[in-house]
């Protein structure tokens, strides 16, 4: 009986080692084979057929579902890796809101939420009534104040609705940093130019989702073409959901929407 069990375990071990080895070799091959040779599935339908400098017929929106976010910080890690964001500057960050039963609102975002929220706050004097996480990133405004104020046109709005920065033109006067109502901009100490989230424009052009959307384990971040009636973002924005934008009074018309946005969120 014992022998049978022993051999069973050995066989399992062998199978396990085989699988690990197989995985390692396959994984190493992926590193060696040029990326172009890989057939990465298209994540945004119709993007690979796009030709010319601007994306035609599409209108991209970003949706953050506050009711889903668990504050793990994966999005922040993915973003930092994608862009080598210098410490102390944030293209995206996650805020933690805690509301006590006296209606006091406590907000924090240590290190921009990069390390996740692994421990609860201990400095709340009253019982906690509610708590949630709010990821922040570029609002990709339809009427962007950063573009309006840039004196050299380094910050511009593409015809397909992206607000981007030309690093070769930016003089780093920081006027855009002052003008952005959402504080998503910073001066990158390495390039000495303005910097911010681009909704991963380079990935989108290749039919891939933004890095943060790709890694979110709970689909709190959604990205897609609102002109595509089959897309999830179309359904969210055209069905009776509680959807809002940040600081609507600023008149910037963000393309970043929030599902379940609470009035406490600024």
């Amino acid at each position, binding site marked *: 009986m014992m022998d049978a069990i022993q051999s069973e375990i050995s066989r399992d071990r062998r199978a396990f080692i085989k699988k690990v080895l197989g995985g390692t070799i396959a994984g190493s091959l992926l590193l060696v084979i040029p990326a172009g040779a890989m057939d990465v599935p298209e994540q945004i339908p119709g993007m690979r057929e796009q030709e010319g400098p601007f994306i035609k017929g599409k209108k991209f929106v970003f949706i953050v579902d506050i009711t889903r976010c668990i504050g793990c910080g994966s999005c922040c890690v993915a973003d930092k890796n994608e862009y080598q964001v210098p410490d102390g500057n944030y293209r995206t960050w996650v805020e933690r809101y805690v509301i006590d039963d006296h209606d006091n609102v406590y907000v924090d975002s240590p*290190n921009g939420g990069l390390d996740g929220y692994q421990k609860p706050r201990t400095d709340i004097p009253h019982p906690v009534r509610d708590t949630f996480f709010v990821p922040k990133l570029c609002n990709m405004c339809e009427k962007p104040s950063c573009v309006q*104020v840039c*004196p050299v*046109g380094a910050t511009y709005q593409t015809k397909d609705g992206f607000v981007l920065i030309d690093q070769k033109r930016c003089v780093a*006067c920081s006027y855009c*940093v002052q*003008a952005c109502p959402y*504080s998503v901009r910073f001066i990158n100490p390495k390039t000495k130019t303005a910097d911010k989230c681009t909704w991963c424009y380079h990935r989108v052009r290749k039919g891939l989702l933004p890095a943060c959307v790709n890694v979110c384990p709970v689909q709190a971040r959604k990205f897609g073409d609102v002109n595509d009636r089959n897309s999830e973002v179309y359904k969210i924005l055209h069905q009776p959901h509680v959807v809002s934008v940040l600081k609507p009074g*600023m008149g910037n018309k963000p393309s970043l929407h929030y599902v379940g946005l609470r009035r406490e969120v600024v």
Partner: protein
Amino acid sequence: MHGLAETATGAIGYAFPNDLHVHWSLMIVLYPYITGIVAGAFIVSSLYHVFHVKALKPIARFSLVFALAFLACATLPLLNHLGHPERAFNMMLTPSPTSAMAGFGYIYSAYAIVLILEILFIYRPTLVVLKDQATGFMRTVYNVLSIGSDNLSSRSLHLDHKIISFLAGLGIPMACVLHGYVGFIFGGVKANPMWATPLMPVIFLLSACVSGIAGIIVAYMFIMKIKGRPVDLECIRTCIKYLWGFFILDFTFEMLELFSHAYMATHHWHALHELYWGPLYISFWVLQVGIFSVIPFFILTFMNLFRIGDGLVKFLAPVVSLMILFQVLLMRWNVVIGGQLMSKSERGSVIFQPQWLEKEGILPAIIIMVLPLVILYILSKVFPFWQEDDPYVSGSAASGE
């Protein structure tokens, strides 16, 4: 420290993570301070040249050269601030028409041209005489500055006079545009509730007049003291009168702006309130309002409503002018730095402490503020500031102005 952006030393409440950097530092405090002095000094000169306030004749020419010395340094803090100063000219070569900032190069250059032309025409007879007296290098300098003309006929001088009146008249709206525009750069930032007010250009303009007049009083009295010459007290009394008038307007508008915010009490006011009674308490209420506005206001009122002795004027005029110069500097600090201390999270503010040796720190700021005085000294070697030193004025009865 991240080199470019100054890092705040801490935060009160919750500030957005990117708001911990105070991007517009001491350099951007100096920029409106310097352009304000330029605009104000020009106004002093125009009071004589355009509005014929005869008492200001002793300082009318000096004010223009004083303005030029500061104007020459107005771009230095900006260039020191830019992450890529080598691309600064792109603001003029490829300007973005929607940007308030893109206008700076044009407005600055146009104003500089008017100011330099006015100085050259006012000094032309003097420069012609000086050219005849000079030899070697200085002769070449005067030859260039007198625009190659040594015609001092009454017809020619009459034409000069017309041109000067035209330039001085043109210069007033341009000086107003130069500094009103600087106020607009801040007033047009809707994301910042402290800056976003249509009153901002007005306040900047009035404080510019105030700082310019005060600067001229201090510089004139200081130079006279060094030269051991008597101060023209009628001139100083007139300056003090204008300083009083402009300062009443300036201080009233500064307080009205704050009072309007408080009275309307929009949700922005709650954030502003925290700022004014928190991080800005000392620099705004105690220093800018309490010590450097209220006290100068009473001194100026006393000087203007009572006929006080010459000795007291000589003592109080530079004191009150220096206090006003500090007031305007504090106002620039409280607007530029203060406005950035409040995070756009509306839930917190940051603490900012300038460092001495940073790229945009206190030492570079001092150097930039001393430079105009060095330039003024060099200009004094070319342009005689005072009638007594002017060979043309002393050599002929006719005044070139």
